[in-house]
């Protein structure tokens, strides 16, 4: 019979090997395997993991937040009430009590957990008798072995994980809403009831007694366990750990009952139990009877009645209890304090306990309900002294009658298992703080319970070091609790972490620098407008005007052969050098002349070269040898001989020789300078040039009397100068250039690489003055040249200033429009 499994649905007994209920086909064996590995449950004694639950605060459900808010309000109200009732004694916390931090709140009647309130306050529920054997188990999801294992643990060890959560109503909500709702209808009546109760009795017992008084005659007394049984909430909604605890309590109760019979506890219930110890076999249900003997002793003999007499009494103070209080008042206070701290866990266990076999009525004693349970632990410390004093308790007279009543048994099923265990257990078997922590199977614990355990484990040690710490927690899941987290090393940083602003803290100077950097970057990327002007259209009229005026101003002097403008006076050094060469060459000496100018410059070049050649021919009658690196040079030579020098009647092959075109550019000049015979062996008539009269006896450049280059290109002059320098030796070198290229050739004269320079018409005019005005070509051009220069200068200045003014006006207009 002890192995029978009770179906959670139909409450029928089944064989232990059956997987499904034979009556309702409900599964009796769990489908899941025990957890292992990372998911393995926390073993008893295992160091808890400290969890900063303050981070979870934003994600808490709204109902929990509301509950916490209400808890804070309750704290405030409690504080006000404490101020209003300074005479109400508060139990001193024990340094060794793991629930010491909760004492301050446990003393408040309003902070009584809803679960406990529901147990003590719910009324008008008929008590259903439970007479099944204790060996029959209620099965939810665990197997039989699970119960056996849990039974080995101390039934009160579950308080370790719950002790800190007791004063928090939000955690009551965490247990089950339906459980809380069951107690809510009674909460409104609690303040009135608490006022009418005796201060020496626990609140829950006082309330219960008061409610019994409020109930009409004949109404069966109600208790929380019965409420659980009769509530529409299915049993599956009861948490697993709660069911397990119920089973554990049943086991522990059955096991402890024998011990209780052998030892006496120095407290009023213990006195009752001591009486039980004298006749443990009187009752066919020893566990059931023993569990509530002390309470039965407090109740008048009401056998056969629905409502016990003692419950109908407004005083609600059993005489035996009063007697015990008279004998050991201090011990009673301590007991009441210890029990009050564990009331919540006891309340959670009570439904299972009720379903198992018993109904109980909590003794309403003291308003400080949570403190009485703590006393049991304290009592265990000095049990040897108290046991002797408590052994003299006399058994109650109505105990036997009370045992005979099933209904009364049902009433007592609401007595918390923890309380029953504490009462029935011998002093040596009272659970310690470590035993509490092993009661609840870790896998049955919810996250918030485990979180509370982690903190409590630390508190259990440190609270002894800081016993006077009653700081009220203001954040986290422990908000509203006082004295839970001692302000010691390692626990001083339990407050919410400092919130750092995500906004960048920038000073004014940094902002100014950032703005400057932005401006620089913007200036780098911004397009720079290019100063553009309106397209200046070509003025054809101006062009025609210029062409006309220049043509007229130049052609008129040319055709009129005027000589208004005087020739330049003064001979520059370069021109003087050329003049010296022309005058110093030997008579009939060979002179090499290079014709390297374009036909377009023939007018200027002939006018510049003619005076010098005219003077040389007149003075020295040189033999001229012409060569050209320009394709048209050979023809220009013939033009020059037959043009400005026609008066001298030079004959080709006799007085002069035209070697024609010298190809190769610089290389041709270099080759000609090194070996003229090889490079230019023939003249224009394909005759042997070096056998002719002008070149008789000449085989190199150094044998020429003078070297004259007529060019309009500075590059050609540079080539001739540079490439022939080593070959010509000390032969005079004169360059007759155009006015355009003269500045580029001038450095060679300054460096003495050439002997003289005749720059354009200006040089020819100078040279012509020293040639008695011959041939006069420079003079014929000079008026037109001077007039054209003055006209050009006037046009450039006048036109430039005019256009400058126009341009400025346009820019001003453009700026104004912008």
């Amino acid at each position: 019979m002890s192995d029978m499994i009770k179906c959670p649905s139909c409450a029928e007994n089944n064989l232990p090997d059956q997987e499904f209920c034979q009556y309702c086909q409900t599964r009796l064996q769990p489908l899941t395997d025990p957890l292992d590995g990372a998911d393995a449950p926390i073993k008893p004694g295992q160091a808890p993991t400290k969890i900063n639950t303050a981070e979870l605060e934003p994600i808490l459900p709204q109902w929990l937040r509301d509950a916490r808010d209400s808890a804070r309000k309750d704290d405030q109200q409690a504080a006000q009430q404490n101020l209003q009732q300074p005479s109400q004694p508060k139990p001193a916390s024990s340094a060794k009590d793991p629930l010491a931090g909760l004492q301050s709140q446990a003393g408040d009647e309003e902070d009584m957990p809803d679960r406990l309130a529901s147990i003590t306050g719910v009324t008008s529920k008929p008590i259903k008798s439970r007479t099944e054997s204790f060996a029959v188990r209620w099965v939810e999801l665990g197997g039989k072995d699970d119960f056996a294992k849990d039974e080995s643990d101390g039934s009160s060890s579950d308080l370790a994980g719950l002790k800190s959560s007791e004063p928090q109503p939000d955690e009551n909500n965490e247990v089950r809403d339906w459980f809380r709702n069951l107690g809510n209808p009674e909460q409104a009546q609690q303040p009135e009831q608490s006022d009418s109760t005796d201060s020496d009795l626990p609140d829950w017992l006082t309330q219960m007694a008061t409610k019994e008084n409020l109930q009409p005659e004949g109404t069966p007394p109600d208790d929380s366990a019965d409420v659980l049984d009769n509530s529409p909430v299915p049993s599956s909604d009861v948490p697993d750990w709660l069911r397990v605890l119920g089973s554990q309590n049943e086991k522990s109760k059955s096991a402890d009952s024998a011990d209780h019979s052998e030892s006496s506890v120095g407290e009023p219930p213990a006195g009752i139990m001591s009486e039980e110890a004298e006749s443990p076999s009187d009752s066919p249900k020893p566990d059931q009877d023993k569990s509530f003997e002390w309470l039965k002793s407090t109740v008048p003999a009401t056998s056969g009645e629905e409502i016990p007499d003692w419950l109908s009494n407004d005083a609600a103070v059993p005489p035996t209890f009063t007697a015990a209080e008279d004998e050991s008042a201090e011990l009673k206070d301590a007991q009441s304090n210890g029990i009050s701290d564990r009331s919540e866990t006891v309340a959670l266990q009570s439904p299972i306990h009720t379903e198992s076999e018993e109904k109980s009525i909590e003794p309403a004693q003291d308003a400080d309900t949570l403190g009485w349970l703590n006393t049991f632990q304290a009592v265990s410390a000095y049990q040897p002294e108290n046991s002797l004093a408590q052994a003299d308790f006399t058994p109650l007279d109505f105990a036997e009658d009370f045992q005979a009543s099933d209904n009364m048994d049902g009433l007592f099923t609401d007595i918390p298992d923890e309380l029953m265990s504490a009462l029935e257990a011998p002093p040596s078997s009272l659970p310690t703080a470590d035993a509490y922590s092993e009661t609840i199977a870790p896998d049955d614990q919810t996250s918030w319970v485990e979180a509370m355990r982690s903190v409590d484990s630390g508190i259990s040690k440190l609270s002894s070091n800081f016993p006077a710490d009653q700081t009220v927690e203001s954040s986290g899941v422990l908000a509203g609790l006082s004295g839970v987290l001692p302000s010691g090393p390692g626990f001083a940083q339990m407050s919410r972490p400092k919130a750092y602003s995500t906004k960048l803290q920038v000073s004014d100077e940094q902002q100014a620098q950032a703005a400057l950097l932005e401006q620089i970057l913007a200036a780098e990327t911004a397009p720079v407008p290019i100063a553009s002007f309106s397209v200046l259209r070509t003025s054809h009229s101006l062009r025609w005007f210029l062409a006309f005026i220049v043509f007229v101003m130049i052609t008129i002097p040319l055709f009129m052969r005027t000589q208004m403008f005087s020739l330049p006076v003064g001979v520059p050094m370069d021109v003087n050098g050329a003049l010296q060469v022309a005058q110093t060459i030997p008579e009939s000496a060979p002179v090499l002349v290079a014709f390297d100018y374009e036909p377009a410059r023939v007018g200027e070049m002939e006018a510049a070269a003619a005076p010098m050649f005219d003077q040389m021919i007149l003075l020295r009658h040189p033999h001229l040898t012409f060569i050209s690196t320009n394709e048209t040079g050979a023809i220009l030579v013939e033009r020059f001989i037959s043009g400005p020098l026609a008066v001298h009647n030079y004959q080709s092959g006799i007085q002069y020789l035209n070697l024609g075109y010298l190809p190769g550019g610089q290389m041709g000049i270099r080759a000609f300078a090194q070996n003229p015979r090889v490079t230019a062996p023939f003249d224009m008539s394909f005759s042997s040039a070096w056998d002719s009269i002008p070149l008789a006896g000449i085989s190199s450049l150094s044998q020429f009397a003078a070297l004259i280059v007529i060019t309009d290109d500075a590059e050609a002059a540079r080539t001739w100068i540079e490439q022939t320098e080593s070959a010509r030796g000390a032969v005079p070198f004169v360059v007759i250039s155009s006015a355009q290229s003269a500045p580029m050739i001038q450095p060679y004269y300054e460096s003495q690489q050439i002997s003289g320079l005749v720059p354009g018409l200006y040089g020819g005019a100078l040279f012509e003055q020293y040639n008695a005005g011959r041939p006069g070509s420079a003079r014929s051009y000079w008026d037109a040249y001077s007039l054209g220069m003055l006209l050009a200068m006037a046009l450039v200045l006048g036109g430039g200033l005019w256009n400058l003014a126009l341009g400025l006006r346009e820019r001003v207009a453009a700026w104004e429009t912008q």
Partner: protein
Amino acid sequence: MRVLTTVIAIAAGALILAGYFFPALADVQTLLLNWAIILAGVVVLVGISNLISVHTDKISRREKGSAYSALLVIGLVATLSFGMILRPHHSTMKIVMNGIIIPAEASLMGVLTISLLYAAIRLLRRRADLMGIIFLSTAALLLLGSATLPLGDIPLIGTLLRPWVTQILALGGARGILIGVALGTLMTGLRVLFGADRPYGGN
């Protein structure tokens, strides 16, 4: 092939350069330079042949302006024929030179004169900055200094400013340009000798 051309180019340059320092290599230098002159003459012939072929293609395809191409080809062939047949000193060749080539190019110079004058007048309208003003002022000063008055040179300008500008400023600028040209030529020659530059097609 690239290696061969590079070797030929570097060897020719090295031999000609060595001819300046070693008289024994002067004949080799002269030989190479004569080859270069012959090749340059041939290049002129090749250029003339290419000019004739391009314009004859335009004439054959009757492209726009083919009449000018025909005129160019006719003038080229006629001048070549007259020169080869009559020789350059023939009177006909003088007429061709004096009647066609010189007036045509001289007229271009005249147009250039008007264009330059026009540009100088309009310069300050487009670019009225300091450099433009200096440019025009210098040009006007040289024009004025190059001319003479009926009574002689323009005082101070023709006798002092113009010579100073041409002999000092222009001379200094021209010398700097010539030095730069010389350095550039030297570097170009060295790069060709070392094979860094291969203008002959060796990349």
